[in-house]
């Protein structure tokens, strides 16, 4: 022991000897109560809004391992004292050890590690159970029949019926058309910012500035565009001509055209259609349904639509899909990319953000509708998981104890499932193909 006992004569000598001013910088700052009070407020605030999953994510596994180690030292100390006190049994064990058989110290350390690991395991189990029950409650709230598995679909249904009701109420109460806003291009145009099939107005608001909204929230248009080209250009080049339903300003078609692909745009908004035409693209300034009905059956190579279907009423969507099957040639492709509401973070954030979304379009529903409409081969692709939010995976080195690695393994598995449900892919695409031409 390097420091003398505080009551010893030596220590008192030190006290007396320090008649010189004490070394001021050595004085550690007094723990002030102030931060703690703020800390409490912060904890209270955080505690309310925090989800158990986030708590798990924040902590990860490392502190658990630390917790396991922290107590060991203290317990070993106690055990050693116990040994010193001469439990005769241990004296015997020690004797055996001296003859080279056992190391009681190591046995005790191992016992201690096991004990610590046990406590941690139980705590972790408790935490996971809590998360599980929270998610289960969530699932049950949405979809009593299926639980969390069916929650997304059920949520979609609910939203759909809520919106339908809302629209019905609004139309029932309105006798004269609302005054057109100054921001709208032409008063006699349907007041929707995006093209759509069918006759019903998609967006019930005439005041909403969709273009401004899109610019602010959808992200860097260039990056999005390049991603789309990367994903689909090659496939589309095999299936010409390519029709973009709701082509907007025609950015995608422009880039496809640059690759020598024959393209046609459909865009009912005159302003956007004009911009698209300025890129040298053929644009039909009308509703997709109307235009599709006007072209010969089997005359189109591919139809692509991005972030359009979720703005359509169900019947309009079904009609669009059925028309597509008829107007596409054999073995042609239909591509629709939309946000993925099965990822809860998308549903809770970006999906709800856009007021013109009619309903969350669950991948399974869209796939089902495509199949019903007559497509032969329907595939789903998922893109860009919300990795920033992912619960961390723990990787332990080979030197980590066996129990810790086992623990890490099972926690990682659990986190994987949670990541999928909570922070899964943000976008998905359905890629549907028409039946091949009958062979002669």
């Amino acid at each position, binding site marked *: 022991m390097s*420091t003398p*006992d*505080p*009551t010893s*004569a030596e*220590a*008192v000598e*030190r*006290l007396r000897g*320090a*008649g010189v*001013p*004490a*070394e*001021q910088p*050595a*004085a*550690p*700052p*007094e*723990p*002030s*109560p102030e931060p*703690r009070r703020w800390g*409490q407020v912060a*904890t*209270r605030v*955080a*505690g*309310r809004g*925090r989800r*158990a999953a986030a708590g798990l994510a924040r902590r990860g596994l490392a502190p658990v391992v630390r*917790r396991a180690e922290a*107590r060991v030292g203290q317990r070993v100390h*106690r055990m050693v*004292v*116990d040994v*010193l*006190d*001469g*439990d*005769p*049994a241990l*004296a*015997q*064990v020690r004797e055996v050890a001296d003859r080279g058989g*056992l190391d009681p110290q190591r*046995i005790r350390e191992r*016992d201690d590690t096991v004990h*610590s690991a*046990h*406590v941690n395991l*139980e*705590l*972790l*189990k*408790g*935490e996971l*159970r*809590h998360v599980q029950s929270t998610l289960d409650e969530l699932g049950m709230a949405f979809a009593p029949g299926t639980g969390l598995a069916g929650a997304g679909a059920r949520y979609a249904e609910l939203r759909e019926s809520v919106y339908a009701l809302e629209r019905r109420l609004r139309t029932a109460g309105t006798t004269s058309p609302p005054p057109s806003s100054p921001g709208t291009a032409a008063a006699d145009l349907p007041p929707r910012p995006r093209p759509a099939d069918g006759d019903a107005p998609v967006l019930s608001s005439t005041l909403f500035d969709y273009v401004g909204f899109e610019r602010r929230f959808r992200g860097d248009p260039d990056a999005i565009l390049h991603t789309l080209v990367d994903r689909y250009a090659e496939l589309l080049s095999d299936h010409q001509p390519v029709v973009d339903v709701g082509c907007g300003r025609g950015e995608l078609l422009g880039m496809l055209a640059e690759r020598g692909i024959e393209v046609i745009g459909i865009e009912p908004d005159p302003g956007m259609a004009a911009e698209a035409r300025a890129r040298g693209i053929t644009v039909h300034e009308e509703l997709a349904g109307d235009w599709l009905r006007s072209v010969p059956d089997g005359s189109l190579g591919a139809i692509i639509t991005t972030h359009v279907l979720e703005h359509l009423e169900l019947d309009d969507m079904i009609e669009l899909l059925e028309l597509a099957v008829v107007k596409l040639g054999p073995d042609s492709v239909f591509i629709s990319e939309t946000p993925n509401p099965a990822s809860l973070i998308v549903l809770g954030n970006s999906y709800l953000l856009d007021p013109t979304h009619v309903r969350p379009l669950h991948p399974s529903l869209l796939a089902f509708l495509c199949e019903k409409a007559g497509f032969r081969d329907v595939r789903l692709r998922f893109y860009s998981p919300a990795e920033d939010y992912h619960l961390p995976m723990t990787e332990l080195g080979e030197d980590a104890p066996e129990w810790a690695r086992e623990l890490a393994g099972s926690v990682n598995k659990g986190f994987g499932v949670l990541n999928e449900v909570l922070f899964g892919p943000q976008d998905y695409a359905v890629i549907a193909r028409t039946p091949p031409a009958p062979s002669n």
Partner: protein
Amino acid sequence: MTAPVRLAVHIGRDVPDGLNAVLSALPPGVQPVAASEREALPEGVVAHLYCSDVRPRRPVAPYAVWWMAGEDAAPAAGAGVPVLADAGHGRPDDLQVSLRAWPEHARPVLPFTRAGLRRVRELPARLVGESRSDGVSWGVPGEQPAVAARDTWPTLAALASAVVATGEDLWTALAWAAPAVTDAASARLLGLTPGEDVLVDDDPAVRTRLAAGLADDELRAAGLARRGWQAACCRRPAAVAAELCRRLGVRPPAHSTVSGLTAAMDELGTPPHSLVRRRARAATAGLPGAVTSGWRPDREEHP
């Protein structure tokens, strides 16, 4: 082997560090086990600890509740349900857990013993030690105090008639059973009862005066010293764990890996190198197997 005695732990939201410390310090033979309302309890559960929004609906076994910082409402007290909390967060009767490290070597030295040690060390009979943010000082009340190095604080905590300290230094003083004067914030932080465990005033000059008064009042000083020390002791995780078991009526199995003599001496607070430990060792040395708790020489593993 007897069946293990189990404490069912119900967890929600976060696991407070204190909970882990308390569970790790449970007496040998008492196992914590995770439980939830949704599944059958493991065998051997004799009591429950709720650290969760979920509270027992039909309590069939004795239970305790962990009061989380941030929960506004105190858990329903009464009915003898023990409440655990972080130190400074609970009420006086709650089992408050402090994770502060126990100062090295610390042992209770009550005023009479302190006076004896001062006499032997030729220190003044009345001596007040004071720790402030700008340093440590000591001296006879009413005289100019001497400045000392900060690392001499444990010596003052162990020998002074009374001390004035806040924060961590107060904790050290309590661990040495020094009659202590502090400010309201420090007392709150450690969950101490003003006037019982420590004297409290927010004016430094008044604190110095109170300490001088304690140096002259052996009776008052002894009461403060004992209560302050016991208050600090009972916030240590092991003490909380033991008290929790006591209040819940959880009796660990009689056979444990720690011999009865050792347990008895530990409970009384015997230092590791104390003479009485050696005497106890010597007394049982001739009786191998007397306190083996079922250990069998043909088995490698300790039960």
